[in-house]
């Protein structure tokens, strides 16, 4: 084990107020510490010295919950490919490095404090269609709906999205297309998702636009930053599904209902 002496430039901000970078010395950091453990050490020292500890999001610390964030040296979740911040280790840095630590920046992700942002916009997008309606009662028989292995595998790839928001943070337009396309595409590829496919696609895209995310410019920084390596081909599928759903809505409309409806 060796010890690293680092210079941090950490974003400090209170909700609704303008933020600034604070220079913090992180000396004697063990190289086998994770990035979050390094932040813990820094915070303990800040508290001991009577300072204000740096607020950041974290939960499982094993790369599956999607809670940790941080843009490290301009890259969401830092320089290591397919890795969340909690699984990033300090041995990826050199002694004497200056590290920029910033929140996932987007208008749709308002800063709560320092490195914590409110990712509630993702929840609202999910609520606008990222589900399948199922009947309650006993669990249905297994394999009562046959699904091709390739389709199941593809849907599983999309389902690997942990909703961390790195795609938004890494996109120069703060676009949420990779997240939305993975969540919509997962269900749109499966037979269980077919009945609500058009409604889901339109609903989720409209909610995404309403939240104030930017537009995709096909640069694929999201795919490079994604800790779960979600493919931008899901965005291709969302574009296709959205075009077809819009055309159907415009020229066919919703199905006529016997009771009339409103």
């Amino acid at each position, binding site marked *: 084990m060796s010890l690293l002496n680092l210079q941090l*430039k950490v*974003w400090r901000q209170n909700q609704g107020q303008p*933020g600034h*970078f604070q220079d913090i010395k992180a000396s004697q950091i063990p190289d086998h510490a994770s990035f979050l453990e390094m932040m813990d050490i820094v915070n303990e020292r800040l508290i001991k010295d009577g300072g204000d500890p740096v607020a950041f999001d974290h939960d499982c610390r094993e790369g599956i919950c999607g809670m940790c964030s941080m*843009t490290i*040296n*301009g*890259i969401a979740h830092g320089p290591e490919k397919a890795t969340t911040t909690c699984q990033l280790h300090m041995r990826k840095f050199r002694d004497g490095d200056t590290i*920029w630590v*910033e929140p996932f*920046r*987007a*208008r*749709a992700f308002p*800063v709560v404090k320092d490195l914590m942002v409110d990712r509630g916009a993702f929840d609202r997008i999910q609520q606008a269609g990222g589900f399948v309606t199922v009947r309650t009662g006993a669990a249905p028989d297994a394999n009562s709906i046959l699904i091709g292995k390739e389709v199941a595998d593809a849907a599983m790839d999309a389902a690997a999205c942990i909703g961390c928001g790195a795609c938004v943070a*890494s996109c*120069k*337009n*703060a*676009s949420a297309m990779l997240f939305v396309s993975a969540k919509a595409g997962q269900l749109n590829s499966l037979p269980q998702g077919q009945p609500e496919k058009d409604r889901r696609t339109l609903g989720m*895209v*409209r909610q*995404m*636009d*309403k939240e*104030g*995310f*930017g*537009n*995709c*410019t*096909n*640069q*694929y*920084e999201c*795919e*490079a*930053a994604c800790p779960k390596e979600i*493919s*931008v*081909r899901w*965005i*291709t*599928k*969302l*574009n*296709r*599904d*959205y*075009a077809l759903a*819009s055309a159907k*809505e*415009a*020229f066919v*409309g919703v199905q006529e209902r016997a009771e009339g409806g409103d």
Partner: protein
Amino acid sequence: MKKAGAACGAVAYCQSELFPLMSAVFDSLFRFYASSIGKKILVALTGAMLVIFVLGHMIGNLLVFVGPDAINEYGHLLQTALHGGGVWIARLGLLAAVVVHVIATIHLTKQNRAARVDGYGKVASQVSSKSSRTMIWSGLTILAFIIYHLLHFTARLWHGFGGAAYEIQIDGHKAHNVYKMVIDGFSWAPASIFYVIAMLLLSSHLSHGVSSLFQTLGLSTHRSEPLFKKLGYAFALLVVIGNCSIPISILVFGYGR
């Protein structure tokens, strides 16, 4: 259109009082334009039209190397197709494509800028090309170039291109001496230099735009994407070589002078 689209995006269903019968379809179209993906699809479709035009325009222009008769007769053919109506159909179609392409991209770019108010202190990118990050600037420069180019060769404002010196007879009809216009036009160095710069930027724009339009139209797959990407680069290279060969041959190597 922009205003109506924005309003329709905000409410669930908006009814047009002016066109009650058509409102359902129009409301949907406005909502389509108001949406992020809708605007992008329009940009991709108009981009595809312009890509095809750029290819046809270049092939036609290269007839300058075949000789005066070839390019002059080609020009005459375009001017007289469908009794002179063909050229206007093409012009209006292209004008509509350019207007939609430019307005939608400006609208999208403004939204993109607004989506991140506080920028990063340390900016880094991992995979995006410089061309893809400068699309709005290459695009706007190309727009300025298109206006200059139309005033130069279509409106024929300068160098006396509109005068009798540039008129010839083809099959007893009055026609433009396109060959002489091209040679004289590019003999003036500033024009040639601006053309070459514009073509380099067009090439940059196409290197991202061509493969991008397949993605936006939902046509890219794991298998086809590498092909579309190479196709885009090859097309960008072809356009810059083909189009720059004309001013460079004339100005540097004295072709036709």
